[in-house]
């Protein structure tokens, strides 16, 4: 009786037009989630009998499940870490590393803030590093008000936090200051920054785009050219918005990839990634990257590009790193 009661198909279910069956299990970053959701939704309109499920356990939580073989695809807002790579190796899991979009990590201030227009990397370090953390804005740059710095940041478990930390801290092993107001919900950060004078916060560019009436973005001085650059689709794609433009990935278990429904799904994902990325508020990667990603799958080239054979981190723009010669398996 329960089946009759609860198992009913939604009245909006579409007519089936393909016999493809099976399951695709996705878990991981909530930043990548909107893209994966769009892919799952579009794919299931073509293949209604394939069951795609998408979770939001976070990049780290997703890899934990992926590296033991629980999921077919892992969403990640940062490249795989050496510890996660080792875990995958131990359980004999090989994967394709496929970049799907760019995200511009955006530093924001209140709309009414008149003086905070740009920051250099050095100044960002003065604000965020645990040891040298400046208490007042006047300590960061001369002429800025003698007011306390209030910071709103994503939760420490998120890939966004990890990425920001990596850029700011680098390989020094220092940590970020602990007196920031953190939240897993980026909308809380939006409210926090827009309601607090002399505050600064950071999150993905999608949240800034939706709240341009309340927030302004802080331009970042490109360490190479010395120009202050604001996050726009153009500057994020060209890489001039450095170093805060980051690629988002999906990792695909190569064993799962042999299954027809997973192959089909990944094919759909890569073909539609540019469109899905921009409608989710992100920036599409150059077409050459998607082509490269297709080739990795077609030629069965597994492994990560973001670790050296000694499992050291590789950093740089995705166009330089995503080369077949950089593959480490």
């Amino acid at each position: 009786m329960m089946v009759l009661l609860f198992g009913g198909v939604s009245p909006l279910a579409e007519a089936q037009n393909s016999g493809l069956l099976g399951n695709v299990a996705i878990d991981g970053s909530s930043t990548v989630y909107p893209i994966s959701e769009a892919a799952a939704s579009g794919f299931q309109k073509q293949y209604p009998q394939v069951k795609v499920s998408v979770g939001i356990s976070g990049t780290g939580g997703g890899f934990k499940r992926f590296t033991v073989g629980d999921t077919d695809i892992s969403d990640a807002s940062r490249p795989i870490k050496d510890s996660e790579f080792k875990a995958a190796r131990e359980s004999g899991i090989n994967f394709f590393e496929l970049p799907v979009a760019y995200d511009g990590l955006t530093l924001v201030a209140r709309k009414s803030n008149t003086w905070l227009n740009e920051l250099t990397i050095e100044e960002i370090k003065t604000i965020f590093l645990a040891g040298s953390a400046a208490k007042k804005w006047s300590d960061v740059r001369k002429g800025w008000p003698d007011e306390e710095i209030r910071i709103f940041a994503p939760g420490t478990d998120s890939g966004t936090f990890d990425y920001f930390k990596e850029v700011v801290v680098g390989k020094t092993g220092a940590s970020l200051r602990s007196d920031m107001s953190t939240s897993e919900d980026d909308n809380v950060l939006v409210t926090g920054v827009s309601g607090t004078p002399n505050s600064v916060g950071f999150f993905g560019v999608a949240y800034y785009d939706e709240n341009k009436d309340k927030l302004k973005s802080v331009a970042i001085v490109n360490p190479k050219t010395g120009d202050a650059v604001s996050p726009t689709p153009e500057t994020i794609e060209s890489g001039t918005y450095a170093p805060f433009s980051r690629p988002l990935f999906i990792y695909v278990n190569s064993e799962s990839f042999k299954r027809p429904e997973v192959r089909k799904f990944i094919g759909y994902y890569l073909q539609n990634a540019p469109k899905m990325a921009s409608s989710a508020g992100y920036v599409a990667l150059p077409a050459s990257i998607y082509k490269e990603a297709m080739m990795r799958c077609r030629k069965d080239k597994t492994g990560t590009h973001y670790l050296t054979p000694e499992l050291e981190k590789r950093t740089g723009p995705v166009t330089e790193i995503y080369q077949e010669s950089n593959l480490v398996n």
Partner: protein
Amino acid sequence: MSGNDSHGDSPLQGQSPDASTTEAVKQQAEPVTNGAPFDASKLVTSRNRITKDIRFRQMCIVTASASVLILVFLLGSLLVSGLPALSWTLLTGYPEPEPENAGLWPALMGTLWVCTMCALITLPLGIGTAILLEEFTPRNKLARNVLSLIQLNITNLAGVPSVVYGIIGLTAFVSMFSLFDDADSTDGPSMEMGAVYFDQFSNVASDPFLNTGDADARERYFLIPVDSRGAPVTVPKTGMLAYENGEAGFATVEILAIDPFTDEVSADADIMSRTIDNTSTPGRISEKQWYYLRLPFGRGVVAGALTLMLVILPVIIISTQEALRAVPATLRAGALGLGATPWQVVWNVTLPSAIPGIMTGAILAMSRAIGETAPILIIAGIVYIRSAPQHLMDDCTVMPLQIYNWIQRPQDEFHEIAAGGIVILLAILLTFNAVAILIRHRMQNKLR
């Protein structure tokens, strides 16, 4: 009986200030003043006493109406923002990326499955435990100690944050202390029943990663039954018979297996559509019956329901105990005196008169279960799924999780439909409660 009526009968109100001065104040004042003559200034104290009473009543009214006002405000703001977002699509649609097409049908079904399962498991268990603790007094010291230990545990468990239960549920129900093989891993669960396995091949034309040159052949997928989940992988051969899952159900098809890079590709679209890459590995898929069972449970409806059971069990037990305690001892004594066995007393006397109280506890507990997000996020972790659960081990999501996901999104439109989702959640909650209240009402009438 309303609160106001009882105030009318209260002795304090019945007394006039004059009457109280004569008796009560004098008596109180005497020991202090050590037999001094009547002091008129004490009248002030008496007036204080009365004003204190009035103040207290006013304070009660203020706090009571404040809580009602807050509730009205909450409901009002919720309805204002939620009602415009309500639509048929929201109720019956799938979680699409476009907010105007998004709905929470799978989450709604998930919530109904999980909460119904949870109620079916928890109510008998909780009420049973409460009856043991209240109605059957232990006869020896050991049993007494065991029961008081259980009692202590239950009272403590009521205060544990629900995330902790999520983690317990992950160990105890999802992986079952790793006593069995991982249910989600490629090797599959240790024990299962109600599943049939197939190897699914795609034809050459449908592989997005193969260049076959022939775009005319349509996509087709072929199923070859295998004995079990762990059976060896089927190697495709020309002439093999396979099932095809078509519009008119399953049909049998003869397949061809070639190497698309070396063998000649047929120009005939029909033959081409039945051709499989002979090096391709099939995907092992399963058809599961509604009674599908596996050990360990893995992530799914049952694991979620059992975890919610942990969250609400203490609430049910404690409220049932209170309800049983409220049954007059004379009723039990009377029944026992007439020669009823303890079982007959519990079943025919105590339990029926305690049902109203038990139902109140059940309402509170189920309200908590239906709104619980944290443990389900750990157990299910899924927010996008396009189907309602089909069996007890099926993946599912629940409404609070779907709403949480929408609120987290950057777009305002998602926040609006999230408000609509909350209204639907509230409506379901009220329906659950209405059923419980109905049962309570029936039982109360019966008792009279």
